């Protein structure tokens, strides 16, 4: 039971962070399919920090690694911004390309790193191992990781930013009616970049939060195994609203954790195979999407490149 809670929290935070990333991007008018790739890059950067500076004091290490994941996520998301905002290219296609690129980059970097680190001859693997003790706390019977707290803080911040500050107002205006925003002197391009970059930061942290607390070795050949796409579903299910997203994330997380620890719970008697369990969150989200997106609150101008000149 405690395990179920532990893993539910673990995945929920990840999905929430990434989904909120998607939310910021889409609220500003840019569909962000690239979250999967951004997660991988962010996770990679964070892990690299852990590997390179293993003997930093714990707090510094935690701060630095998380910072690294956020920043790298931002930088990678800039590629999306560039193609989608500056070049006005198709957002979905650009995002898809970035996803494919991310895994390739991660593998090459890690292998190059492993090669360098022990003067190997190509026998370097795409795996990195690290220690994650600094991220994990035991509270009574519960094991929680630092990202739970970070997640809650970011959740509140996101809500406030989006609905209680002028920046939020402007960002949302750009996603709903860019021409209107432009006519009152709001720089649409700048705010769309802002949205995309925030999503990059959250996506990056999310990727790191997915990799680090759960294991101490990660094989970057698998990227983040579809978590980014699941987060997109969470975002839609959460109707682009922070707290709804948090709820949706928990819902999906329960399924995901059950898939893994079912055989050591009462469910083991059902004798369902891991394939079945792995299917569940996706099927669940499909059903939910079918019902929710009839009256979807999607930002009106999302996916449409903004072009000043056009009437």
């Amino acid at each position: 039971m405690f395990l179920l809670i532990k893993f539910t929290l673990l995945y929920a935070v990840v999905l929430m962070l990434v989904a909120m990333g998607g939310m910021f991007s889409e609220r500003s008018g840019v569909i962000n399919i690239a979250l999967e790739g951004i997660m991988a890059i962010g996770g990679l950067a964070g892990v690299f920090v852990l590997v390179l500076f293993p003997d930093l004091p714990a707090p510094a290490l935690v701060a630095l690694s998380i910072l690294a994941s956020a920043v790298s996520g931002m930088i990678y998301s800039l590629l999306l911004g560039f193609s989608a905002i500056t070049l006005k290219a198709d957002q979905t296609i650009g995002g898809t390309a970035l996803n494919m690129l991310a895994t390739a980059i991660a593998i090459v970097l890690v292998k190059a790193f492993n090669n360098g680190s022990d003067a190997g001859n190509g026998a370097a693997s795409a795996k990195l191992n690290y220690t994650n003790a600094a991220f994990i706390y035991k509270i009574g019977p519960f094991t929680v990781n630092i990202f739970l707290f970070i997640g809650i803080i970011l959740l509140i911040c996101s809500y406030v930013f989006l609905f209680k500050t002028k920046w939020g107002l402007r960002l949302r205006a750009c996603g709903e009616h860019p021409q209107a925003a432009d006519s009152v002197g709001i720089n649409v391009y700048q705010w769309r970049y802002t949205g995309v970059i925030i999503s990059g930061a959250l996506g990056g942290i999310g990727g790191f939060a997915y990799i680090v607390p759960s294991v101490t070795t990660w094989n970057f050949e698998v990227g983040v195994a579809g978590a980014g796409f699941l987060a997109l579903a969470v975002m839609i299910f959460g109707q682009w609203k922070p707290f709804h997203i948090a709820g949706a994330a928990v819902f999906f997380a329960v399924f995901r954790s059950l898939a893994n620890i079912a055989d050591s719970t009462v469910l083991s008697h059902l004798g369902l195979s891991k394939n079945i369990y792995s299917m569940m969150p996706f099927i669940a989200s499909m059903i939910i999407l079918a019902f929710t997106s009839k009256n979807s609150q999607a930002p009106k101008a999302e996916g449409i490149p903004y072009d000043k000149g056009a009437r």
Partner: protein
Amino acid sequence: MNEKTKNALLSIVASLVCIVIGLLVGFIILYCINAENAVDGFTRIIKGGFYLKPKGIGSEIAQSAPLIMTGLSVAFAFKTGLFNIGAAGQYTVGVFGALYFAIILHMPWYVCLLAAMVCGAIWGAVPGIFKAYFNVNEVITSIMFNWIGLYLVNELMYNTIPGMYDQKTTRTYKLSSASPKSLIPDCGMNSIFRTSSTTIAIFIAIAIAVIIYIVLNKTTFGYELKACGFNKDAAKYAGINEKRNVVLSMTIAGALAGIGAGLYFLSGASEWNPQVSTALPAIGFNGIPVALLALSNPIGVIFAALFVAHISVGGAYLPTKYYQPEIADLIVAVIIYLCAFVTLFKGIVANLFKSKKEQKANANADNGKEEKK
């Protein structure tokens, strides 16, 4: 020179620009990793299958057949305003259809191919239905159904249906032994290329590409589909059932991907490993760059697929002493990323000599007004 031919020319130029830039970046990467072998490595990629004649060419052909199909799948959906990122899943389910009819039912190859097509079609139809009747973005649905499809197929082959999975090889049973008559005929091509899976699949794929081209450009059905793609509302206004068309085009896209799976697995090239459930078949996803590179033109898809197959095969010949096998993937991925901008390059190239023409157009339009008054 009239609009159409000019447009076609532009497209080709734009695609070539993409490829060149992509390869250039690829070379730079090679150079950065290991300077003195960069040229050798690069030539191997460029030579592709021709580096290992004739077998390399054979396997290049064998691989481009399914690529053409998944490329068509994506391109077809594009033409009708949909982004079919689900080709990978439709391909996977298609594999099941083909192999079930071959290994379990021992059907002749064309029946198995049909089965693959139907399975793929079903897997494409679902996102279509979700899009048309629940207005769920087809991209999300397709992504979900990619994974659902993978898990489902693995479950069926590995746990549910006895007799498909071969303990000894940890793959599905080889068709050559399990059901030779389910193998697509090779018409002696295998002996030419000294390979085992170079079949007429490639010709089937090309034929289908041509058919798709005709359907899209010469038939009322294609006219309707494209109208929906360009402008849903206008299509509806013209009395076209746009919901039905969405479902139809996704179904067809799925069918194409399914055929791709059939063409590959029924040529005995490979067996399915139902234990691996972390990655979807790359051929499915590579359909996207192929379609983009071809600017969604069915005929262009043929060449784009050949190109992608060419450099992927070539990438495998990189000397592992100096380059990890992933380098090739990286280079392909870079080209893909650039493909996202093909339309852009096109625009740029176009603007260079478009503007004059437009002026003329507007001019006579205005003179027109004058005369009337």
